[in-house]
């Protein structure tokens, strides 16, 4: 091959993919960004103007304030629960015999490949007023509590959907940990709990950090679970966008909410990555 042809080779090879992404991703996203500055009129429809009023509406209306605050709350609570449940579980799996581990790992990460709608339906059945959770509570003499259409229910279901991502990344980090450090700590008389918090968790930190980022960004952009378990009243950013686009047809306002959500998530991803790179540069080498 001539040198020029060889130098152009990577571009020829990736050209079909670049074309698809330019036409099917870059242009639609730009159009949506532009749409967020347009005006919607009930009689005249969408008008191509350049106005910031959709963004001003979002910034000044307490209705949107509540929606974004709830989105953030779901993200933080789900992430915290995923750490509390996922990190010990990843460590327990790590200490299991490989036979058992393979089976349980399949049971934990397998559900990632089952539709979120199906998994959420399971939670809707479990948490419903006559659901299994309430039946169990009644038989134990506890009061009947409604979990469906509550923030608590959404967080429990969201954690179920997303905790496998935390386990996967903590698991990957533990694979790189040195098992001898645990033995050393044990031989020096450390208790199981001390070993877990002082030896295991610090070595799992890179995994916890990347798992946290994945769980948080997926929790704040989740749609099916808050829509089914939360219902119409407990709106989050994604369900608000859905309503603007498919019910009230105020597309420009919906596009503006989407841009705020997108900017928020990208900002968090980028600044979080910066922080991790600065702090744990040597860990990732």
């Amino acid at each position: 091959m001539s040198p020029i042809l060889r130098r152009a080779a990577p571009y020829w090879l990736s050209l079909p993919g670049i074309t698809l992404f330019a036409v099917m991703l870059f242009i639609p996203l730009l159009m949506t960004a532009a749409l967020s500055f347009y005006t919607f009129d009930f009689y005249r429809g969408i008008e191509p103007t350049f106005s910031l009023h959709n963004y001003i509406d979002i910034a000044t209306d307490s209705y949107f304030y509540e929606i974004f605050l709830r989105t953030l709350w779901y993200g933080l609570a789900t992430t915290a629960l995923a750490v509390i449940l996922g990190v010990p579980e990843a460590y327990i799996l790590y200490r299991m015999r490989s036979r058992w581990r393979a089976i349980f790992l399949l049971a934990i990460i397998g559900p990632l490949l089952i539709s979120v709608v199906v998994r959420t339906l399971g939670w809707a059945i479990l948490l419903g007023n006559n659901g299994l959770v309430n039946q169990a509570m009644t038989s134990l003499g506890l009061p009947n509590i409604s979990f469906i259409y509550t923030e608590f229910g959404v967080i429990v279901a969201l954690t179920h959907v997303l905790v496998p991502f935390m386990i996967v990344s903590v698991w990957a980090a533990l694979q790189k940990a040195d098992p001898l450090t645990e033995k050393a700590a044990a031989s020096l008389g450390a208790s199981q709990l001390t070993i877990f918090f002082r030896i295991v968790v610090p070595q799992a930190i890179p995994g916890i950090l990347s798992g946290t980022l994945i769980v948080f960004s997926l929790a704040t952009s989740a749609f099916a679970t808050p829509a089914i378990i939360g219902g119409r009243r407990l709106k989050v950013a994604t369900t608000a966008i859905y309503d603007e686009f498919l019910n009230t047809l105020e597309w420009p306002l919906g596009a503006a909410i989407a841009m705020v959500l997108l900017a928020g998530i990208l900002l968090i991803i980028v600044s979080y990555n910066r922080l991790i790179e600065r702090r744990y540069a040597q860990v990732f080498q």
Partner: protein
Amino acid sequence: MSRNGPLALLFHALFILYMVAPIAVVVWVAFTPLGYLQVPTREWSLRWFHAIIENQEFISSFWISLGVGIASASFALLLGVPAALAIARYRFPGRGLLIAAFLSPLMIPSVVLGIAFLRFFTQINFTGTVMGLVLAHAVFVMPFVLRLALSSVTGMDRSAEHAAVSLGASHFRAFRRVTLPMIMPGLLGGWVLAFITSFDELTMTIFISSPSTTTLPVRLFNHITQTTTPIVASVSALIIFLSIAAIVFLDRIYGLDRLLIGERQ
């Protein structure tokens, strides 16, 4: 290695219960003879599985999801493999940008992708087409295909390929007869993962599917939010059975941990 203590095993048992319970309860409810979503205790019935057959709409949605999944995974693979070769084997200006662009659908919330495609398709009069669904899904599943293709291309030993070329095979022939068979397991794993991702996708698709191109997750979601008939449970149970088959298949051909976690250490 020290064993897990009784407390750790109790935690583990409760955690596994938490993970499995919502999936098991769906399968359980699917066999109810009642007209609402309630677990059957005395009587079992296949009534709601019969309802799927009588009610054709879920079956037609299944075929649409299957077609869109196969087409978009294949199309993404067709465009993704050459791009993965370029990224893995060359250092060129714009390489980092290219990787970021191809992986970006993972970072953009699906709802944003959904409205972007809806806006785009309305502007170019392309709404409600199966072709539109396939192209949108191809973008959406590209990161999965690219990641697995990249890891197989970077992980492979190139000496066989160099031998083929030095023995007079053309570059294309060397690729087809030597490289391709070597990276095949990774590509197959990427294809299956892309197919499942497309088949399960709801949040983006709900914006761009029309009444005649409603995919299975969208049909299911609309039913769940509008009705309480157990047909949603029987359809979900069938999806669960299919997913388990796919999971076991993926585990056999590629290894589930490697597929989702990355290279085995």
